[in-house]
């Protein structure tokens, strides 16, 4: 374990009934890097994301986040089942009970990990700005009385939220669409809005699930620039699932290749490009890949 990795995954396994979607997946994401997770369709990339962000409870393995100056155990904060030992150790029992009652996916985000979805999930009937305000929920003044009486402190908090929202709209080039419904935006705009929304939660690690899917070459190029800017300007680490090999090879520092639920290769773009196993896994899409 290197000191400067933001995410460590060890021996991750995920079983859906009889289907073994992931088996002994281990990798690390170093801080301020862009790491890509690639592999053919159905390799289990999205499943890895869902385990990292807590939507699936991994059947095996450990996921550790080193964010906000502390270590977060993703498996623990999702709320584990009670063990016999807990009943004689009140402290451990208390912590298990707490996470069972109040744990869950939202805690992973609060720990500093944000994600986007392969099939875009925006709040379609809310305006673009409102989408970004919802993402800032945790940072706002949530006192009911302050809100009802519209106190100066509340107005200040709302104003700051608006400023942040407009800052991110500018970053993803959506200023002109601020007051439109999110569902009305074009596909490319929706993808960008989803990234902005994830950034509004002030993450340290951003996980993007196929952000370039459905974009045209110009939009993909712009996205590539945006991802690099994000990393540079906002002290961000990025984990990226992508099929567009041009984007992956140009932007990422480190690539992890997944096939049939297992890591088959890992390394810099140079190494991956010439790795025999990777070429076999991608057989048939070879020209596209190289």
């Amino acid at each position, binding site marked *: 374990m290197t000191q400067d990795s933001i995410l460590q995954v060890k021996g991750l396994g995920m079983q859906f009934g009889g289907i073994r979607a992931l088996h002994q997946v281990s990798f690390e994401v170093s801080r301020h890097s862009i790491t890509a997770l690639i592999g053919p369709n159905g390799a289990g990339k999205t499943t890895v994301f869902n385990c990292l*962000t807590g*939507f699936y409870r991994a059947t095996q393995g450990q996921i550790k986040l080193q964010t906000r100056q502390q270590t977060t155990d993703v498996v623990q904060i999702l709320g584990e089942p009670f063990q016999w030992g807990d009943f004689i150790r009140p402290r451990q029992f208390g912590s298990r009970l707490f996470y069972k009652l*109040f744990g*869950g*996916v*939202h805690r992973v*985000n*609060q720990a500093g990990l*944000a*994600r986007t*979805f392969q099939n875009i*999930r*925006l*709040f*379609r*009937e*809310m*305006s673009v*700005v*409102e*989408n970004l*305000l*919802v*993402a800032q*929920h*945790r940072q*706002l*003044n*949530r006192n*009911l009385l302050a*809100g*009802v009486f*519209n106190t100066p402190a*509340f107005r200040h908090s*709302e*104003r700051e939220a*608006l*400023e942040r929202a*407009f800052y991110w709209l500018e970053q993803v080039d959506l*200023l002109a669409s*601020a*007051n*439109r*419904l999110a569902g009305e935006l074009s596909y490319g705009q929706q993808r960008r809005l989803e990234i902005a*929304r994830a950034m509004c*939660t002030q993450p340290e690690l951003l996980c993007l699930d196929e952000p370039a899917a459905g974009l045209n070459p110009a939009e993909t190029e712009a996205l590539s620039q945006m991802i690099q800017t994000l990393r540079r300007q906002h002290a961000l680490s990025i984990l990226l699932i992508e099929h567009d090999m041009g984007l992956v090879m140009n932007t990422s520092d480190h690539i992890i290749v997944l096939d049939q639920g297992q890591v088959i290769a890992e390394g810099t773009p140079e190494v991956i490009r010439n790795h025999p196993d990777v070429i076999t896994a991608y057989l048939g899409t070879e020209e596209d890949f190289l």
Partner: protein
Amino acid sequence: MKALLMRYWPYWSGPVRDAGFAGLMALILFGPVVGVVLKGYDFELHPSRVALLVGIVILGRLLLSLALQTARGKVWLQRFELGRDQGVQVVPAHQKSLWRWVLPLIILAALILPFYANKYLLTVVILGLIYVLLGLGLNIVVGLAGLLDLGYVAFYAIGAYGLALGYEHLGLGFWTMLPLAAVLAAVAGAILGFPVLRMHGDYLAIVTLGFGEIIRLVLNNWLSFTGGPNGLSAPSPTLLGLEFGRRAKDGGTPFHEFFGLTYDPNYKFIFIYLVLLLVVLLVLYVKQRLVRMPIGRAWEALREDEIACRSMGLNHVLVKLSAFMLGASTAGLAGVFFATYQGFVNPTSFTFFESALILAIVVLGGMGSTLGVVIAAFVLTVAPELLRSFADYRVLLFGVLMVLMMIWRPRGLIRVSRRGVVPPVAQGAA
């Protein structure tokens, strides 16, 4: 003639098929209902009556289909189709709303009303306002947070019985119970909601449906505590300790003597009306604020996409719970007003039909729309009073109204609009 028919057959074929199908349906429906008449232990067949009804249906359907094929018919059809698309819209931030002028006028009219209305009108309007309160509360739960609550009437019952029982057993009056009932209902909502809200949406509908029935059955059967089917009497409100009865209990001065007025039983209803109006305005204001607050936005986001919400760091259980509790406490308030207005409570006021009625108010009004809910509440509660002679057909009219609304305005009476925002930089310059 035949040649003419054949030539225009493409235009005829659709309507004829429609008419044939409608006729078949009518035959199946009317056949047993109208065609077979019991006579003592025997029955008679009346095929001619069935034939007449089926004939009317076939002819009507044929004419309707033909009419809809004409140019004017098509335009008319399109109007229906358009209504379908009217979803949410964003209003520009600086657009001045007409409400700034209309609202004060409405409030003024509402304040003057009780002094000119007779008792009957007053009681009808009070009932309407109680349903406005219920509709607003359920609108938070169903319209904003997207949680289907089929047992909402349970919280209404908790409020109403709270007043009656608090008076009976603890000697608490209207003013103590008003806030207390809201808290009680919210606590009941929390106890019910916490385990259920972490499960998937459909469970909530089933559990709340069950909860509503449980509360009603308990009220009905726990004779020693709730008085069973006979119910309990509920106290009238007081104005700074002055009672509105002809004679005050315990030797105090009643309201009319204190002010040197002649006794009028209307005073009590005027007072209830004014307090209720105040509470409704307050709830309206709070609702208006809530949708601009983080919690209100979180409710709507949760309705839109729960998974995205959770990945944004929102604890979905607590967000849902807050909506559920606020909705419940509003119903608790409404319950207290209902009990004091009726003077007594019994379980028949809290059946599933009530829950369905309140849900209908929310759906007809337009999910999430405040104005829509207020209008729908008055339409659905005041209209049946005005149409007394149709009382037997109330549920039928109700059903027809629902079907028409679903065709014409599936998203509710009032189109939901969201307020746009001005970029903060421009705000600073202005």
